[in-house]
């Protein structure tokens, strides 16, 4: 399939080797790389700036590292980290679950399903997350009870909305619905990135439809889904801090509560920062290993 062909073997003759004495002199030639003085200057300047920053971290009493150490592993903070992780997990699981459904709706042959999925993605990408969260939090204002039954007909069971949803539930719902719009596009892009020939080959072999998707398409789609999905999960993880507007005891909310009481703003912000950095690092490491698993058979 290559456009170029190999050069003919034994084509034009290689120039004849110079005589022995000349070859010896050529053999002693060494290569001197070009110097880069400006590059060295830039390295020095950057190093100085870094040192200044490190020095400031160590010596500026405003950081209050003692307070930082006291709170970093305090039980109240650990519990808040746990809530943040829960929000991330539920948001990711529900968000990507719904996202996969929406992606296949958008790829469906039915114009109606395509339109609905498109509309959903359009709406949830257009509304800021914080606005959505407040809407969900105030759901009871619109529907004070939720009823299950025949659509437009009689209902069988009904629940008090706030009792069913709750603050945590509203937060998860908001995060997941928001996440689903983005996840749908990521999954759709991944499925589209798989060569159409793969589905044809699977179809020509009579492999059942669901199996074609699960065994042939998705594992290949994962290669382009994973980096984007990891980005989304990390941004959702940090995005959980927005939930603090709903007074849910996640990391950022808890930190605000504590520094509101003791006034130690900077060290407590550092507590939150370091937890976010640590856990994002863990996610990145997990991402690296998952990507390696799905790289099977990839040509280097």
């Amino acid at each position, binding site marked *: 399939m290559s456009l170029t062909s190999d050069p003919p073997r034994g084509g034009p003759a290689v120039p004849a080797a110079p005589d022995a004495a000349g070859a010896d002199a050529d053999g002693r030639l060494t290569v001197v790389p070009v110097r880069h003085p400006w590059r060295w200057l830039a390295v020095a300047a950057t190093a100085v700036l870094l040192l200044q920053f490190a020095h400031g971290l160590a010596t500026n009493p405003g950081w209050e590292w003692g307070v930082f150490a006291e709170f970093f592993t305090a039980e109240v903070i650990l519990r808040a980290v746990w809530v943040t992780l829960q929000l991330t997990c539920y948001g990711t699981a529900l968000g990507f679950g719904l996202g996969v459904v929406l992606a296949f709706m958008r790829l469906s042959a039915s114009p109606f399903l395509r339109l609905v999925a498109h509309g959903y993605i359009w709406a949830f990408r257009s509304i800021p997350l914080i606005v959505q969260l407040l809407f969900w939090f105030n759901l009871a204002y619109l529907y004070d009870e939720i009823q299950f039954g025949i659509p437009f007909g009689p209902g069988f069971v009904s629940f008090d909305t706030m009792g069913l949803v709750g603050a945590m539930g509203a937060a998860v719902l908001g995060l997941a619905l928001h996440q689903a719009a983005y996840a749908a596009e990521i999954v759709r892009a991944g499925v589209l990135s798989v060569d159409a020939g793969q589905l044809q080959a699977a179809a020509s072999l009579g492999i059942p439809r669901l199996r074609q998707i699960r065994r*042939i398409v998705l594992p290949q789609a994962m290669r382009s889904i994973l980096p984007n999905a990891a980005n989304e999960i990390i941004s959702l993880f940090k995005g959980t801090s927005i939930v603090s507007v709903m007074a849910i005891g996640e990391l950022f909310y808890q930190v605000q509560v504590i520094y509101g009481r003791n006034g130690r703003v900077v060290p407590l912000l550092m507590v939150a920062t370091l937890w976010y950095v640590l856990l994002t690092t863990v996610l990145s490491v997990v991402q690296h290993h998952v990507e390696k698993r799905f790289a099977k058979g990839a040509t280097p």
Partner: protein
Amino acid sequence: MSAMVEIRSVRKSFGSHEVLRGIDLEVRTGEVTVVLGPSGSGKSTLLRTVNHLEKVDSGRITVDGRLVGYRRSGDKLYELREREVLRRRTQIGFVFQNFHLFPHLTVLENITEAPISALKRPRAEAVAAAHALLERVGLAEKAGAYPGHLSGGQQQRVAIARALALEPKLLLFDEPTSALDPELVGEVLDVIKDLARQGTTMIVVTHEIGFAREVADTVVFMDEGVVVEQGPPAEVLDRPRQERTRAFLSKVL
């Protein structure tokens, strides 16, 4: 001998362009039919309609006496559900120009996937059969390799083994050597010749005139969506009756 494939008055358009303009063709059991023709003549589309990868607009195609993508009731052809089409396809092997091996599965997994998932064969049985097939195409030692690490010729031989794993009644080849470097064409044609000697019923779309002369029982020449001429290779290739066939052969020979 009976007809394995019967194609009757098949028409097919893509938009306003009619690619197949009334094709009639018969392929007898155990014979090799080679389809020749300039690009755009509809030969690949015809091949794809035989296993219903492409739907026809009118006409009918039967393989071993059965319609592939439809059920007939009176004067109407009802399109079958996908599940049923998939089941009927397992009896028809298809080899693509660009191989279309599954890159994330090993050679062995490529071959065993369809027997296990479509025919519900026990895994051990499918694996043993796959090893035997790899032996047959000369790639016994490549079972654990990924397709990306094989040459084009090796990939196409794996693709042939994958199609054979379903023990199809009919094998379809869509320009199986067109994507290969010239020095790799021979190894693939050798495998196909070997299958021909064993009496496998095949339709091969190709540009390899020498292969057609050597292996074909029938050569079909297509141009602009119709069958221009067909017959034994000695007739069609050496004493073509139609001007269009002569013009095509003079360009490729």
